[in-house]
């Protein structure tokens, strides 16, 4: 503890030193971007630009139908297994079908409205992450089943958090990540997704907020796509 306190005190003074150097450096003004060194004011985007960023970014669709179509197209691209169900019963039937096809013996999940329904429909032995869990046991599970906060049409992504989706590891440690979601969770784009997160948590954020886009992937060997580098080899999104 003493050593740690020393490090702490030492770095407090470094903080002042670094901030001092920064303040001194900033007494000179830098030219604005795109002016090639001429000191001209920014012309295109005075003030905060991002609020109006939507039109230049890739689109996510206007109506719910367009948004679903975007999400579907992005999922195909990403090799996400995207399943649309008519109602809850149909969604659970799809889940059971996947479990049977893959021969699941045990699942890892967390307590929430949608995952509780999934777990009881499956009726398999389960590991619940709630009050802590054994890492090796989770690694041996066949699938991790979670809820998500929001789905993003623009990129085919979903957002999981350490509070609402059973912790940090549940969505990456088991070989198959299954997300159970409702149609009304789909939003147009990343801007809307982050706005939703900021509204939902109102300053009291979970320690991890992860935008998940497709199953784990790598192109590190000859730029050839391989799924399941470290995280899940499969990502399934079941939506109704």
């Amino acid at each position, binding site marked *: 503890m003493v050593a740690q306190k020393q490090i702490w005190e030492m770095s407090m003074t470094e903080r002042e030193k670094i901030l001092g150097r920064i303040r001194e450096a900033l007494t000179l003004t830098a*030219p604005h971007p795109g002016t090639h060194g001429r000191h001209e004011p920014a012309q295109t985007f005075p003030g905060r*630009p991002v609020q109006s960023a939507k039109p230049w970014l890739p689109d996510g669709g206007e109506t719910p139908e367009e948004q679903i179509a975007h999400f579907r197209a992005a999922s195909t691209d990403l090799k996400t297994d995207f399943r649309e169900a008519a109602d809850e019963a149909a969604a659970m039937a799809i889940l059971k079908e996947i479990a049977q096809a893959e021969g699941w013996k045990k699942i890892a999940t967390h307590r929430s409205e949608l995952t509780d329904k999934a777990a009881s429909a499956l009726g398999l032995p389960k590991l619940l992450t709630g009050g802590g869990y054994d890492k090796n046991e989770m690694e041996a599970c066949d699938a991790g089943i979670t809820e998500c906060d929001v789905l993003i049409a623009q990129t085919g992504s979903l957002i999981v958090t350490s509070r609402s989706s059973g912790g940090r*590891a549940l969505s990456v*440690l088991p070989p198959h990540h299954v997300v159970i979601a409702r149609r009304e969770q789909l939003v147009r784009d990343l801007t809307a997704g982050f706005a939703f997160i*900021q509204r939902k948590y109102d300053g009291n954020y979970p*320690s991890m907020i992860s935008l998940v886009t497709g199953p*784990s992937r790598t192109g*590190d*060997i000859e730029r050839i796509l391989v799924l399941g580098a470290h995280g899940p080899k499969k990502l399934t999104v079941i939506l109704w």
Partner: protein
Amino acid sequence: MSSHSQEFLDQASVITRDLRHRGLIQTALKKYEVARDKRKSAFGDWQSARQAAAETKWEAINHLDKYLTEFADKLEARGTKVHWASTGEQARDIIVKLIAEKKAKCVIKSKAMTSEEIHLNDAMEKAGFEVVESDLGEYIVQLRKEPPYHIVFPAMHLTRDEISDLFQRELGSAPTQEPEELTMIARRALRKKYIEADIGITGANFAVAETGMISLTENEGNARLTAALPKTMITLLGIEKVLPKMEDLALFLPMLATAGAGQAVTGYNTLYGGPKQADEADGPEEWHVVLLDNRRSLLLADAEQRDALHCIRCGACLNVCPIFRNVGGHTYGTTYSGPIGSVITPHLRGLQNWKHLSGSSSLCGACTETCPVKIDLHHHLLQNRRNASQEEPSALEQFAYKVFGFVANRPGMWQVGKELARMFQPLHKFVLGSKLDPARTWTATRDVQPVAPESFKEWWRKNKSGK
């Protein structure tokens, strides 16, 4: 000439003739270009998005003190320890001490170029800790005891056969031709490490001031696991990583992925705002964030080149650079290669020793055009050249230009010079390219044009009257 410059020239002359290397790089980058252009076309307006990204970074960097303070204070308010390091040495000491305190044995790392910059792995290994890189490309180059070849694609210079041989030798696996099988060998080896490791070390792509969070971009899930399973998490990042607001990520995540790898967004983009909270199932009990200056504040003081700190390390400028594509990543001998490396290395490691990098450029401007945050890269290369020669002018060069200026301003002397050149040039062939050749740096790779037997002026004098 510095020894770094000589090494650069020696290695460049070998690798530019290596057709196998060239083939590998061209194939990889062609795939990248196709994917990148497809993603760029999905943007409503790529150029406006670039301008917005540049303006956002300008705002962050030009109020760095404010945003950095906000970032650090917000992090600390939620139980994260923030450490400040002026130098690479200080950052190494902070991290090594932390690991020693935890009596840790095994450290798992996700990709962080900042840790390459300060040679963190060497320091941890010297202190007796086992360090495992978990990004597949980084893992491969670590097994080869090499630095990463490219800031985004660390093992881009290797074929599947070379990787298979490496895994056979180092991991005792069976030979295979399949990238998928090779990936699974690494997956199996590393899964154990995540579970065993006591410490997880990550870098950061962005630091969100508004909410006090880091944002980590990856595809493999290795950073997610690194930040989930070990009891202690350490994050090392440069002070220039700040973004003002969370919503800025809605712009920067797609831009980074598009410019960096030709993806809409990468597989995992994760915000971390603290250690495990009371109501959460897992995560590190302690989180330490190390903020590194390491001469970034000096670059900040150079208002002309300050925008080099806007860099989001996407690697797009490397991919389009004719120099990078010919000499490859290792030839640079620096952590950051390509145009951005040539611009910032002289600031980070000394102008005189690294000015040769600013000289090795065709000034084609492809880097500036592709940069998603509009850094004026090729102009900065020229500015580095100017600064280097102003700081330490070469006496020989100055003398040569003085003589040239003197002669060129006196027509009589110029005439005598021409006659002398015509008379003596035929003798040049006896020493051509040898040590005695005064022009050997030119003639070693280029033909010498003969001085014209008759200049235009002479021709004109003869022919205008004959009209």
